[in-house]
């Protein structure tokens, strides 16, 4: 029993990572119908950047995180303005191509800037190495931090999307672009802040999980793929669906490690998701839209 709980807990932890990346992808997709292939690399870059400020520049840990997040957010505003905005009314493919280009570009910049060797992200008090036990189940302090931080992020994103004017504009765009435009909502503003919000969520994920995954050149790539899968599971247009999808995938993986044959453990969850997708192409948590008019 304790073993199972331990397993499920590790599933929750991975799931949170996928959920956050999934959330960051869904945020952009829902409002702007853009698939951001650079999300993982951008998240990884932020993680590296925070490490760079903390370790190489020697500024305090929390300040380093803040500086990294703010600088990446500003860079995102710039990137959005220069590369995404001009194509905002083009077809889906051109912007996807742009994000693929960004992926290559940022990955390369990240190697040039941070060296590309594996590093470890040290946290004050080394709490990522400190554990405590409840009823035989071991918990890591940093994991608890991740859990709390994730809830805070989810709450903030939920507040922005559901309670602020920006969120209202975002939802309006998600529902009907043309109608939203006619209501006088500026598409450029929505696009710009959606991107910033999405990249910030991704960046925080990159920082939160850097001590767990270890800083490697492309340490956010696998979480990106999994976050992707999580978003698919959630139907790619539902914020809560993406988060639930992430948790579900995390648990599936944890259980596969124990109950599936070793060779299949890595691929099984993705295979399961693939079949889910064949049956329910629009994800588990979304209802089908009314049919299109001919």
């Amino acid at each position, binding site marked *: 029993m304790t073993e199972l709980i331990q397993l499920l807990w590790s599933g929750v932890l991975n799931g949170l990572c996928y959920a956050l990346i999934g959330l960051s992808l869904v945020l952009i997709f829902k409002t702007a119908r853009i698939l951001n292939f650079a999300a993982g690399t951008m998240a990884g870059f932020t993680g590296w950047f925070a490490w760079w400020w903390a370790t190489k520049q020697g500024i305090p840990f929390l300040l380093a995180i803040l500086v990294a997040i703010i600088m990446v957010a500003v860079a995102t505003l710039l990137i959005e303005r220069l590369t995404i905005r001009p194509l905002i009314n083009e077809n889906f493919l051109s912007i*996807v191509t742009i994000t693929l280009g960004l992926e*290559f570009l940022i990955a390369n910049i990240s190697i040039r800037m941070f060296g590309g060797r594996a590093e470890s992200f040290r946290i004050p008090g080394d709490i990522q190495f400190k554990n405590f036990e409840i009823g035989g189940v071991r918990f890591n302090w940093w994991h608890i931090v991740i859990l709390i931080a994730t809830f805070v992020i989810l709450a903030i994103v939920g507040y922005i999307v559901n309670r602020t004017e920006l969120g209202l504009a975002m939802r309006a765009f998600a529902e009907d672009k043309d109608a939203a435009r006619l209501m006088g909502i500026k598409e450029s503003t929505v696009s710009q802040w959606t991107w910033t919000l999405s990249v910030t969520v991704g960046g925080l994920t990159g920082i939160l999980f850097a001590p767990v995954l270890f800083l490697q050149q492309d340490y956010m790539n696998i979480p990106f793929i999994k976050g992707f899968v999580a978003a698919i599971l959630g139907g790619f247009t539902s914020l809560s669906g993406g988060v639930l999808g992430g948790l579900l995938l995390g648990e599936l993986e944890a259980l596969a490690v124990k109950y599936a044959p070793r060779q299949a453990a890595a691929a099984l969850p993705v295979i399961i998701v693939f079949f889910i997708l064949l049956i329910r192409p629009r994800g588990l948590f979304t209802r089908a839209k009314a049919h299109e008019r001919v």
Partner: protein
Amino acid sequence: MTMAYNEQTSSSSASAMQRAGIPVPGYIKRNQILGAFFFALTFLVIPQFDQYTTVIGFILVFAAVGGSLVIAFGAAGQFTLGHSIFLGAGAFLSANIANDSYGWGRGLELEIPIALAVCFVLGLIVGLPSLRVNELYLALATFAIAYVGQQVLYEWKQFTAGGSGKPAGDLTLFGWEIGRGVPYIRLSLIILLIIFWICGNILDGKTGRSMNALRTSETAARSAGINVAWLKILAFGISGAITGLAGVLYIHNLRYSGPENFNVHLSILLILTLIIGGRHRLAGAIAGAIFVKFLPELIRDVQDYEGIIYGGSLILLTLFSPRGLIGLIESFFQLLGKLVAQTPLTKFLPKDTKANISPADEVTSPLQSATLAGLVTSKKRGHLTVQDARVIFGGVRAVDGVSFEVESGKITGVIGSNGAGKTTLFNAITGHAKNAEGHFILDGKEVSNKPIHVRSLAGLGRTFQNLNLHGDIRVLDHALIGLDRNMGYGRISEAFRLPHVVKNERLAYEQSAELLDHMELLEYWDEKVDDLPYGLQKRVDVTRGLATNPSILLLDEPAAGLPTAEALEMMKHVIEYAEHIGCGVIVIEHNVELVADVCERVIVMDAGKILADGTAESVMKNEDVIAAYLGT
């Protein structure tokens, strides 16, 4: 004297195709000659680049994959991120077949056909998600497949030796040893030339045309009788097979490969290569491959900045030249052409034939031409029976028990207020309304519950209320897409452009040109429909419907938005042609004047039911109709 006289008569009764200057489809195109020349040149100068053979080998592999992606992505529009697994499958198949100790110790003569066959089947499987999802979701699904595929390669130790990988076998062809370096590159070049020739043939034939139709409008492609589902997975199959063959070359070039080479990143790089080069042309595959694979070698130390160069150029190209490097070159030549046109050099340029189409001989209308006569059948047709058609959306009975019969060769009008269920009735007849009930019998054949394309092939043609045209495709091709059903050639003969393929293509071109001439669209044959004014687009839509040689043609508001005179003119041509091929026409129209003018019979619909049915005069006098539709 006699000869001169003959010449004159033949020129005055020239076919529409000659008058419009439409090039006759041949075996080889100008671009192919240019391409072959390029290959020959590379073939000869290759020994000069001895130290670059591995890089050149990679360029050839990437170009081959690019060629295959031009089919699946460029033409059929299937955005796939799964091509790394075909490359991996081809590579390991080759390693296993060619190895002496654990394989069969055979050469390329076995590696290539097996890689082609296995990857074709694999392609059909990878293509399955495309039946359910498109664009974004397809990218996701194929992305997942590529990811799982690599895991399979890692775990299938017998096939790939797991993480340690397998060496390539000896490079032989029918026992004849091929040297590494230059001889190998020359062999790859020949293989690439053949691949490109086949890809080009497929793209020029009916398969390429239907793929382009599918990319630009799936609904319209179905209505033109294209089996969209099969075509989509076929695109994956063909593309997968070619990429598998490229995989064989890949491992021989690298001499050793493990599963780690075939990751998702490679898939992305493959599609990026084509986007950089330009996905609308085979030449784009080569331009992209050279750019992505050769440029980093050319400049020392540039490898460290590969990502910045790829990513940066991708972003710049997407922003400023969406058609890739080839698009850039094309615009350059267009600009050059414009500049030359302003100088005295202009007299050396070929004359623009489109601008001045010589008028046809007044006596012979296009309908009397021998080519169009071939479409006329003696079979009696144009007979449609609709029995108790019902379509229900939620609680709304959009079509509620409609029954009628259309006699051969009659023009029937359907009128009714907005929301009366007219278009839904059409959708029920053609199969676009999925939940339609009732019986639909066309020329004695039951077509109920058949998919859209089968109904279309059975003889139901239609147009769309909201212009479902194939955006960036030429007007001429719209007619050809409709005629493709008559093409008497298979896809394999198409790939090799056998003589009967060319013969069929020529006939279809002639017929299309005559049809365009009849519909007064001939001078626009080379225009993309997106660039045409609305009135002409409407006419193209109707022409496409006519080109399917239907038994019953359903026109959904063909005159909407047109001035009455223009609409009448168009309908006159439609009816002439319909009578010529013996097809019945049912037309939904709001323009009562037009309906009264052209329709022998008018059906009035209201709230999903037939309110009145009879001649135009009798219907207009019907009190129910006046109350419900014409108003007081």
